[in-house]
């Protein structure tokens, strides 16, 4: 794999993470527990889609085959998407969405804080913007985790269940393959081993304050790096790509 190819893959992954999580969050529209929260979740979704646009645009430039960010977002087959499996997990109840946000936003905060120093100026620029946004996503997720964990007996039970249910998808956040290591040499990618420590430490603190038990280690799921998804992904894509597939000649 050349550095150029690795760069493309790395950019694509980050674009896909944002795209699919943004898709999931946008499903909350008109369904949140209170209207203020509807607005809050939409803001997070908008940040994600904006970020997807930035990374996919850069991916298209790197690929240099005349594609646009929309071609990449809408016209690939399932195996060509490389988003973390956790991003495609269903919203579930509000606790599951918050748990997914908690795991991802703490990870992303540390990840983008490091990517901000990337030797690739485009990555560094997108990361600098992402870090500001994700700082807020993280605060939003942490505050809700604490409210629900230390709220009523029912909310505590639901929050703990969500933390446990989503745990097996978190291992993948820290997986590194050839793409990561090639770019790491040039100071472009982020070394995920120290990020994992930062993530665990912060998560531990939040769960403690939320009166929640840290999930016990269990087998972690994997697959996104190879384009192997969960059953959810096909449904997400059949919705997302509906108009492109039904009217391939149309411009929107």
């Amino acid at each position, binding site marked *: 794999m050349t550095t150029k190819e690795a760069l493309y893959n790395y950019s694509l992954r980050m674009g896909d993470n944002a795209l699919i999580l943004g898709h999931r969050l946008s499903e909350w529209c008109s369904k949140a527990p209170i209207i203020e929260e509807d*607005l809050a979740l939409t803001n997070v979704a908008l940040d994600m889609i904006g970020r997807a646009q930035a990374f996919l645009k850069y991916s298209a430039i790197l690929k240099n085959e005349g594609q646009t960010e929309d071609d990449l977002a809408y016209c690939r087959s399932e195996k060509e998407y490389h988003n973390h499996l956790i991003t495609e997990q269903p919203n579930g109840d509000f606790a599951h969405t918050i748990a997914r946000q908690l795991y991802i936003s703490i990870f992303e905060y540390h990840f983008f804080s490091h990517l901000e120093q990337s030797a690739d100026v485009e990555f560094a620029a997108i990361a600098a913007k992402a870090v500001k946004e994700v700082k807020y996503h993280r605060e*939003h997720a942490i505050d809700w985790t604490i409210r629900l964990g230390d709220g009523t007996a029912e909310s505590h039970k639901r929050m703990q269940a969500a933390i446990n249910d989503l745990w097996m998808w978190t291992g993948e956040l820290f997986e590194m393959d050839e793409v990561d290591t090639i770019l790491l040499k040039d100071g472009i990618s982020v070394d995920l081993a120290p990020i994992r420590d930062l993530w665990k430490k912060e998560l531990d603190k939040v769960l403690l304050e939320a009166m929640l038990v840290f999930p016990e280690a269990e087998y972690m799921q994997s697959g996104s790096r190879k384009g192997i998804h969960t059953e959810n992904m096909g449904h997400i894509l059949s919705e997302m790509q509906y108009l492109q597939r039904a009217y391939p000649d149309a411009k929107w």
Partner: protein
Amino acid sequence: MTDTQLDLWEVFIQSKSGLPYIHAGSVHASDMKMALQNARDTYTRRGEGTSIWLLPSKHIVASNPDDKEMLFDPSNDKIYRHPTFYVMPEGATHI
């Protein structure tokens, strides 16, 4: 617990530093942090502000409309508080 729509807060936004905080509207939230986040998500979606003040609505002290005459009419005839009250000699500048 009975279901509620959480507490009512009043939101004041400063559009940029140096300017006064202006009442933007209200939000519902159960605590200070949520109120701040909700105010941000509701009232600064278009870059309207750089700073937010929040106040639980029940803590606002308001004058009674019935007291309007007593409170505000007496200041109407104190025209000597306004600079235009004074007669300046012709040609005086910078004053």
